[in-house]
């Protein structure tokens, strides 16, 4: 057991430093093996105190496609303790009578730029695109996040309990995305979703070729996009091979720590993808370009977790289902650029109908506040096309599917006993335009209450400025 972890020159040395104290005759000490750290900037988020809470009489969309009418749910110890027609009500529990109200799993936005393009959107806050090279996988979105973005408070008031903040799409390899909770902290690490895997933001199509082609450099075309990306993946495969080879030798005792390859932070990220530890979130609009990316992933042995924007997923929904790739989509954005020209309002419903993984995303500081409304429009478009979708099923687009797409589906995304108490109480059926979140719990702590000004956060930026205190 390599029990002692030592950080040496930015590396993690797994060594048996104290082996010499062991009695004679003990097995020889395990060799020292240098490993790139997996999580050098770990979450420092701590759930806020909660209270045992029982919500009674509500209609529940559990986020996994289930619906319970006139049901009960108990939140305890930060978790969903029990859910069903009837649950135990411990003495001293806070009881919420919610007849006529709705309870859902918290909304998870898999595509946000809160913090990296913070409000106000002045040039000084433009921290989302490290557009100095088509590949910046060494850049991490969390190091751009301004924890005082007013947008976090608005997202929370919209029922969001987790969000994935991504770099922009100027680059083919934009950098690492990070999963946060909309809980204000003094550091970004205090907002990080504990244990959530990193993502790698990739982009295809018009943005990278426009940004770099405009500077007369690679890539200036779609073929240039793919050419550049393939070369880098090829480099990443070699980098991984070097580390794998070194690790094998070091574990066998035939390599010293000084034999470890030089760490390249950019390739660390790509190696994490090749190892299956970092999830690829790939900005891509057109169906044909998604299929190119799928072929590239196959060539180099990695997996795309989700295509983002994916306005043409409806054209290849069957292939996306076969590949097990999610589509993170808007309800109705279309036509604002050439690659979104074929966007249709039935996209989400058609992806859903094909049995592929559908996610409603925002990519927008306003849209994140009402993802439930975006899903409602997608449901209506499906119905018009003859694809009726039950509302409890559509809620999976907002919770369990994005949770899975972020690798946190085992912890949140649905209301099941033992999972995080990330819960929203709605004033009306949550796909209605008239519905608003009344209360939002994150890990069982009441972080937003529409009726209690003390449970409505104000970002530092807004203090003392016009409009502070007004309900937003």
């Amino acid at each position, binding site marked *: 057991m390599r029990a002692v972890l030592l950080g040496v020159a930015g590396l993690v040395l797994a060594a048996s430093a104290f082996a010499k104290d062991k009695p004679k005759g003990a097995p020889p000490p395990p060799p020292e093996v240098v490993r790139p750290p997996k999580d050098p900037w770990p979450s420092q988020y701590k759930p806020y105190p909660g209270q045992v809470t029982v919500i009674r009489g509500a209609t529940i969309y559990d986020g996994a496609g289930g619906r319970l009418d006139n049901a009960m749910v108990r939140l305890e110890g930060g978790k969903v303790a029990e859910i069903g027609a009837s649950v135990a009500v411990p003495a001293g529990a806070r009881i919420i009578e919610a007849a006529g109200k709705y309870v859902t799993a918290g909304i998870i936005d898999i595509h946000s730029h809160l913090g990296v393009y913070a*409000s*106000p*959107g*002045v040039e000084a806050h433009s921290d989302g695109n490290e557009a100095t090279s088509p590949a910046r996988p060494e850049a991490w979105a969390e190091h751009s996040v301004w924890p005082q973005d*007013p*947008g976090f408070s608005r997202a929370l008031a919209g029922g969001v309990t987790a969000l994935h903040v991504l770099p922009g799409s100027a680059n083919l390899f934009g950098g690492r995305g990070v999963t946060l909770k909309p809980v204000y902290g003094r550091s970004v690490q205090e907002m990080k979703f504990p244990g959530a895997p990193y993502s790698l933001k990739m982009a295809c199509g*018009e943005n990278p070729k426009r940004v770099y082609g405009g500077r007369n450099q690679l890539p200036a075309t779609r073929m240039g996009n793919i050419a550049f990306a393939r070369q880098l993946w090829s480099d990443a495969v070699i980098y991984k091979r070097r580390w794998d080879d070194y690790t094998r030798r070091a574990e066998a005792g035939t390599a010293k720590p000084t034999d470890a390859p030089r760490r390249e932070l950019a390739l660390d990220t790509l190696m994490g993808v090749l190892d299956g530890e970092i999830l690829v979130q790939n900005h891509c609009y057109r169906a044909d370009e998604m299929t190119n990316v799928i072929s590239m992933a196959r060539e180099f042995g990695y997996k795309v977790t989700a295509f983002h924007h994916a306005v043409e997923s*409806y*054209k290849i*929904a*069957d292939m996306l289902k076969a590949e097990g790739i999610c589509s993170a989509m*808007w309800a*109705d*954005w*279309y*036509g*604002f*650029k*050439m690659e979104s020209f*074929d*966007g*249709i*309002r*039935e996209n989400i419903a*058609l992806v859903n109908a*094909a049995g592929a993984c559908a996610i409603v995303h*925002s*990519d*927008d*500081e*306003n*849209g994140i*506040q*009402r993802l439930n*409304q975006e899903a*409602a*429009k997608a*449901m*209506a478009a499906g*119905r*018009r*096309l003859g694809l009726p979708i039950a509302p409890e099923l559509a809620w999976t687009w907002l919770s369990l599917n994005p949770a899975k797409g972020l690798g946190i589906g085992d912890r949140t995304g649905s209301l099941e006993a033992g999972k995080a108490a990330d819960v929203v109480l709605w*004033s009306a059926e949550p*796909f*209605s*335009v*008239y*519905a*608003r979140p009344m209360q939002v719990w994150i890990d069982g702590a009441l972080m937003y209450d*529409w*009726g209690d*000004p003390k449970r409505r956060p104000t970002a530092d*930026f*807004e203090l003392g*400025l*016009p*409009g502070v205190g*007004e*309900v*937003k």
Partner: protein
Amino acid sequence: MKRLLAAMLLAGAAVPAAAAPTAIIGATILTARGETVIVGGTLVFDNGRIIAVGSQVPVPAGAAVIDGKGRILTPGIIAAASDLGIAEVTGVRETNDDSARQSAFSAALDLSTAVNPRSLHIAISRMAGVTRAAVLPDGGSSIFAGQGAVISLGVGGPTVVRARAMQYMEMGETGARIAGGSRPAAWAQLANMLAEAQRLAANPAGFARGQDSGALAKRLDMEALAHVLDGRQALFIHADRASDISEVLRLKARYPAIRPVLLGAREAWLVAGDIARAGVPVITHSLYDLPDDFESLASTRNNIGHLQAAGVIVAIGPLGGVGGTTPVNLPGYAGNAVAQASVPGGKGLTRGQALAAITANPARILGLADTGTLEVGKRADLVLWDGDPLELTSIPVAVWIDGAAQPMTSRQTELANRYKALGRTDLPLQYPR
């Protein structure tokens, strides 16, 4: 008749206003006049105009009858600001005629000359219940960006129903940038251009003889601004910061005939009483709630409710600054204004006010006296919905403009139908099936 109607709608053609009157019966009618709701009502139109509406209206002999039972009938949605017909693909510059920052001219630009009735966005908006719209420029070589138009989205009839309907002007941060770098520069540009327009109007012959050769403005721009000065044209002013709005309100003291309309107006609620007293209407969005810049620090969804309560005529427009904004979503934006009233501390609109904010009020602001409500004598711009029109899950089942039933298809519906079934057959999907 109904079967014929359906066949023609599928064929993608507008059905011309029938020779005989048409009666929609049994519908819940929201007139957009106050909170008036007529349950089980009948509306009759003929020759493109509403000739009867109410709960006890007889169906005229020979009328085509449309069963509206279980449906809701509203006036057509009116987009108080849009780029419909003048911008096709935002990211493809040459398909856009909404801005002309390199032009030698500014106020003179006449947007009606660019309106394309065959724009795919017109078809998409039309089948979503949008029947009329203001088409506005977005940025020019002076703070005056040009003259907007009012269009009908109807198939068959004229699209531009009023050219040169309003002048569009940038104030605040954008106006400052265009004018040379500051708000005072923008106000100086305004004062100078209007003064030159006044001098030209007062003495065109003198201008022709070169007596105003030191003028900064182009003659065409001055001529256009004469329409603003004498109130023939409304002046649509984009301003967000409360102090900019207050400055705009002072315009009327200097130019008494001018008719300002505020656009954006995110901080308007801070000076709502002043706006109401000045009688200046406001076009804003119901979902502005972030400090997007330093002229919108006080943004709140309560804005519209405060303005309504102060007595301002408010229209909800599909304005920028809210991602994915389109005219198609106007009913949802109105519904959100209703929801805002339900939040503790929230200020919003009643359902009647919200519907008026996307029908009657924009009609009034755009000078469309004969649209915007369901009343006898008004144009038969009608939308029949399968549910509450402000709900996100409701869809129009039929749309009439000037009494003509409109096609309910678009490029988007064609794409959806093409890709509804992905299975491989004898020929690629690109062949007709």
